[in-house]
């Protein structure tokens, strides 16, 4: 029988009236890869944050390697060889990568009272070498790194603790297909070396595939811990939501279905920094056009470039298919019934300190402004309340600050505030990143409904299954160029797309 690494017994944690973790019992063996599954708000992140020392538990007990474990902070957890990479971006953008890796532990590089940044840089690079993770520029402020590179910095920080237990909270959601492989290889290495991992992922296929076992949580309680062998995604969905999921997430038809009329016409779109080169595409009425590619393929810059908010200078033509008007700025796009959801929801999409209400009405501000340029607070409230109700947001009211909501509820608001408008097309960059199976199913159902209403959807995604499941056509980008266009049908397979991507 394998040796026990972590044993959690009757662990409880409450936030005011909310019982986030209720009598959690969990045992993890050495060399075991455990996934935690559950809807948003089921208590997964609370549990992992307790294990990693980010917050204390109310009562219960934890035993690590046979000794009582009650970390006061992440550094104490690191000292006991437990480390975690958190769900949302956790780097200080003003500091360099190496400073971020050793933040709070810079004293180890102190010589005569001064911190040797050179020694720190060398040590940071050594972590990347040791664990074979993709190198990132460590000497420049993290503000200049991509989201994926920042995640690698966070991962390196966690690995510096030489952890026996590494917790990854939805890290793969931020990573492209190729970088995820690095995580999978890391997982295999952990297993070989008798180290353990706890992984949270909303990609259920991934959850079943990469884990040895899965602990399912619902409403703060452990529903069941199962072995992954022979356990299916459908089984998992059912256990997570407590009922049988009706039908499938995705479309079941096998042929493209959209109208001929073009809603959005993009010709020879390029960015001066080379992230995009001569991309041309047409988005049709009622079409879901998927866009896939590896991390540097340019899929995410494509969305922001079409929307007109790229940092780099844009060339080429973006035209509204109905009016023929050239679209240069977000204002032009909004006037023509366009909308855009960034992948980086918390930094580029939502105002985290503001109320739900104020986040909700932003895209509709023009419609709500009267002739005298005044906005009626009652009209704003009505609109916000409608979107709030329509999208079944779980919060105390429209006046709750959005920053305190779960990822799924934030995304409902992020998407819902656009969908209350009369739209012609939507540019979605990873719309299901960080949301649970229930919200995911809901978002897909909304997109299918919008498709039926004739809305064109440009679906940029890191999830091949999502693109295959939802799109009429898929554009595959490689090194900033359009590498292939695949139409829904027999050729619509992961292997065909990956072949073009790599």
């Amino acid at each position, binding site marked *: 029988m394998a040796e026990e690494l972590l044993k959690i017994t009757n662990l409880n944690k409450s936030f005011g009236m909310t019982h986030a973790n209720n009598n959690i019992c969990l045992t993890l063996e050495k060399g075991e890869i455990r996934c935690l599954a559950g809807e948003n708000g089921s208590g997964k992140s609370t549990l992992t944050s307790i294990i990693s020392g980010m917050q204390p538990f109310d009562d219960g007990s934890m035993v690590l390697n046979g000794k009582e474990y009650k970390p006061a902070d992440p550094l104490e957890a690191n000292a006991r060889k437990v480390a975690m990479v958190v769900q949302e971006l956790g780097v*200080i953008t003003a500091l360099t990568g190496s400073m971020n890796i050793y933040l709070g532990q810079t004293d180890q590089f102190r010589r005569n009272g001064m*911190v040797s*940044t050179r020694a720190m840089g060398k040590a940071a690079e050594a972590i990347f070498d040791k664990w074979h993770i993709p190198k990132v520029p460590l000497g420049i402020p993290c503000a200049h790194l991509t989201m994926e590179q920042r995640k690698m910095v966070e991962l390196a920080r966690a690995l510096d603790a030489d952890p026996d237990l590494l917790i990854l909270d939805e890290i793969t959601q931020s990573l492209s297909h190729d970088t995820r492989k690095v995580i999978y290889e890391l997982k295999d290495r952990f297993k070989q070396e008798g180290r353990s991992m706890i992984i949270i992922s909303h990609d259920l296929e991934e959850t079943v595939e990469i884990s040895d076992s899965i602990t399912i949580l619902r409403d703060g309680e452990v529903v069941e811990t199962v072995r992954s062998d022979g356990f299916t995604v459908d089984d998992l969905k059912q256990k997570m939501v407590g009922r049988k999921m009706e039908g499938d997430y995705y479309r079941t038809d096998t042929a493209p279905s959209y109208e001929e009329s073009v809603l959005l016409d993009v010709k020879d779109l390029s960015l001066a920094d080379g992230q995009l080169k001569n991309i041309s595409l047409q988005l049709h009425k009622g079409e879901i056009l998927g866009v896939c590619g590896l991390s540097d393929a340019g899929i995410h810059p494509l969305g922001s470039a079409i929307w007109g908010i790229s940092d780099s200078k844009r060339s080429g033509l973006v035209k509204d298919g109905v009016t023929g008007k050239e679209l240069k700025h977000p204002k032009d796009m909004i006037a023509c019934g366009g909308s855009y959801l960034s992948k980086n929801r918390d930094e580029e999409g939502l105002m985290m300190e503001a109320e739900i209400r104020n986040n909700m009405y932003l895209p509709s501000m023009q419609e709500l402004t009267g002739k005298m340029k005044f906005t009626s607070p009652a009209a704003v409230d009505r609109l916000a309340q409608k979107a709030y109700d329509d999208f079944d947001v779980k919060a105390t009211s429209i006046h709750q600050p959005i920053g305190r909501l779960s990822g799924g509820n934030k995304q409902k608001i992020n998407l819902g505030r656009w969908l209350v408008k009369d739209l012609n097309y939507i540019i979605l960059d990873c719309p299901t990143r960080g949301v649970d199976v229930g919200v995911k199913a809901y978002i897909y159902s909304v997109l299918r409904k919008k498709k039926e209403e004739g809305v064109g959807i440009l679906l940029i995604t890191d999830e091949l299954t999502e693109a295959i499941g939802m799109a009429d056509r898929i554009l595959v980008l490689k090194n900033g160029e359009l590498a292939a266009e695949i139409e829904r049908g027999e050729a619509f397979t992961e292997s065909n797309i990956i072949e073009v991507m790599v």
Partner: protein
Amino acid sequence: MTKQQKSQVIFLAVFAAVLVICHLASKGIVLSGSNIVNVMLHAVFPMFAAWGMMFIFTGGLMDLSVGANLLLAGNVGALLANMGLGYAGLIIGAVVTAVLATQFTAHCAITFDIPAWVAGLGGALILEAILAQWANVMAASSNTLPALKNYRGLGKTPGAFILMAVGFVVAFLIFNKTSLGINLQAVGANPTVSKTMGINVRKTIILSTIIGGVFIGISGVNDISLAGKLSAITGLNSLGTISKALSATLLANSLINIFTKPVGIVISSVIVALLFNVLTIFGVPSGTWQNVCLGLLIILCGVLSHLNEKGVVK
């Protein structure tokens, strides 16, 4: 040569070229030895005040009581110096006063969880009132606030320049090369993440404000050494005392892509002092057009330093 080093060389070359042009246009006055010494002497005070603000502001505390603080600190230092304690009294008196005053506003902001600018303005009013009351008491006995007649070496050459060199080394090392400086930058950027990373946010802010207080105390010493006497000001007019230091801070922030903050403050303080000096030589009226020129310069530096900034490096 890195991109940043290239930018530094270009900036300094342009700066030197502008100086030479001004020198020629002023018929040899701007770069004359006596004028350069004069400019540098007037750059020391805003430099120390700006370093002090750097340590206080970076942690997220926008404490605007700095002006009132250094006026009071300079006067306390002068009082102790005149009581026979000499330079030791001058420096210790000013520094201790400034540190206590910064701690007052910092603790108000942190303990009562009120915006730092509110605590700072409240602090400024209180400190101004203390100094004004002191002046009133002195006036009642036909006296004035202490004038520094002796011990003025730190306001003239070479004392002021030695002070500046030591201040620069200390500010640079603490801000860039110590755990406290790195932690301070982290706390200012994101206190939540910093706390998660094991940084003691409160301790970091308090220690940084203590260091900031030391620099402000020294700026008070330099100011009273240069001027000989610092008068009481009320009605938040003490903010005017630090207008050049605030300008230097703004300019240093504009140059952040070219120079680290402590270095940027040195350059900015010299530029601000030079600007006013050159404009005065050219007969530009002070207070109006000189400030317009300063404002334009800050904007220009901000635009130039961010010109080729990329959002993302692959």
